[in-house]
């Protein structure tokens, strides 16, 4: 551990300048999440993070670093034994009102989720319900959150959503097993877009997909982001991928954010030792690579 534990994540001056121009949409302050098992696991420790309107914030880290737990915490999706021990999460709505996400309860929480902050879950292949058609699953979101819509309007909206993510609307009557992995993930994204949320949290959305399909999906996400201007928290262990799509990247280890910077700065001048380790773990495809013969036997 370096001395950053108390000082917060390392960042550059360029980063401070970059964020000064942006308006926040979701702020987390000093969030700690614990798994109440024996002994308790402090999965997220005093994390503060600001997500700005329309930006893609990458959350990078290896398995067990707390990145998914943090994302679930931001969306109030934690379930036992995970508990939000302390901290504040505030959502700054486009209409100017601020919502204390931690205090939300019951109907207010239900209305908030998906409408303001939606999520694309890990495991594209298995997140859809296998016994319901795509239409039923998309309509479910609308009947719950937009009860005013007529049946025809709902149907139209569903078709429109699929078109938006590049899937032929005839697929509305398909079931998950009839779709390819890439199509399933597109449907998941359509579902997350259904209510035009201001924030989308994407947890390893492309990990299970082949690189070519992965690239198509990423392109789709970027296109939709440009069009609808939602902010994205993009969680993955794939740092090269984040460097290509993210505006800013937070590097997490052992429940803490050790470095937070713009993608450009992070690539050019990573300050934290762990970020440097992560970066050097991905040999460049086209560049040179030197064997250092570091076999990392202890790990």
């Amino acid at each position, binding site marked *: 551990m370096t001395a950053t534990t108390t000082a917060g994540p390392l960042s550059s001056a360029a980063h401070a300048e970059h964020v000064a121009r942006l308006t926040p949409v979701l702020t987390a302050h000093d969030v700690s999440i614990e798994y109440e098992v024996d002994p308790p696991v402090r999965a997220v420790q005093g994390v503060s993070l600001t997500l700005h309107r329309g930006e*893609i914030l990458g959350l990078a880290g290896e398995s067990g670093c707390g990145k998914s737990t943090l994302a679930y915490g931001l969306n109030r999706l934690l379930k036992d034994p995970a508990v939000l021990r302390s901290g504040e999460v505030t959502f700054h709505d486009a209409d100017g009102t601020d919502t204390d996400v931690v205090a939300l309860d019951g109907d207010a929480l239900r209305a908030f989720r998906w409408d303001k902050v939606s999520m694309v879950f890990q495991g594209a292949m298995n997140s859809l319900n296998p016994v319901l058609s795509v239409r039923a699953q998309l309509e479910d979101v609308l009947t719950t959150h937009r009860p005013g819509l007529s049946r025809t309007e709902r149907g139209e909206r569903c078709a429109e959503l699929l078109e938006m993510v590049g899937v032929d609307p005839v697929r509305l009557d398909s079931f998950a097993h009839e779709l390819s992995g890439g199509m399933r993930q597109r449907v998941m994204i359509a579902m997350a877009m259904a209510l035009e949320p201001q924030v989308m949290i994407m947890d390893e959305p492309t990990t299970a997909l082949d690189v*070519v399909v992965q690239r198509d999906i990423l392109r789709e996400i*970027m*296109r939709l982001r440009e069009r609808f201007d939602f902010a994205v928290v993009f969680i993955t262990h794939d740092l090269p991928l984040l*460097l290509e799509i993210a505006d800013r990247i937070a590097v997490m280890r052992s429940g803490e954010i050790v470095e937070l910077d713009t*993608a450009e700065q992070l690539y050019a001048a990573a300050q934290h030792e762990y970020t440097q380790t992560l970066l050097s773990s991905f040999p460049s495809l*086209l560049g040179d690579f030197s064997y250092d013969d570091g076999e*990392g*036997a202890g*790990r």
Partner: protein
Amino acid sequence: MSTLEVRNLVKEFKVRDGLRRSTLRAVNDVSFTLSAGRTVAVVGESGSGKSTVARMIAQLETPTSGEILLDDAAIGRRGRALADYRHQVQMVFQDPFASLNPYHSVEHHLARPLKLHGVARGKDVLPAVYGLLERVNLTPAPVFAEKRPHEMSGGQRQRIAIARALAPGARFLVADEPVSMLDVSIRLGVLNLLARLQREENLGVLYITHDLATARHFSDEIVVMYRGDVVEQGPSDEVILDPQHDYTKTLLAAAPEPSRHGRLRDEVRAELAAG
């Protein structure tokens, strides 16, 4: 020099869909030669047939047609000849969380192949186990020998799987996605280990992967597969830096590259601006 060669390898699977029966040609006419002291990478996406090639070489699948030759002789498929083949060709599986038995200690995992393949017996077994652990850099060996799989990290488990493959005295290793299940920061360590074994012990390594960057840097030759066919093969740098086939080009363009940060974002913006 010893070689492992596959010639015109074909594998068809029978598929049943309700009452319809058809065959799926998973591997279509694949040929390449793996020599001692060299690494050949087979790259491709899921469903390209690369794992099926690995499994045929490890004799976990029988080819529909085609030949596998070890030192220019057709390989034996049963009895003594099969056992002989297995002394020399071993496999490292993708998932070290599944390929090691949680009930058994590391010592058991390594002692068994040593005894079964007649490499060591009696009081020679334990020193041989320690020797294997040292070869894969798990020291102090007596400490690791006592551990069970759950007491080790993914990288350490994969080292055990490699040691186990070396135990029979294998000259060729077939490594099917050996690092894709591991945390990113320990992947290179395991690949460096394989590279050292290949160099120092003159091991032939078949490296099955979907990761083009490590395929390039850790192998001498690359075979690119697409839907069962080999679309391109050649020296690693040539295939990556000067790809000839469209599919290879597509794969290369899709691979994330740290030095091209912001590329996708900028491309999409440019596309949208252009309408």
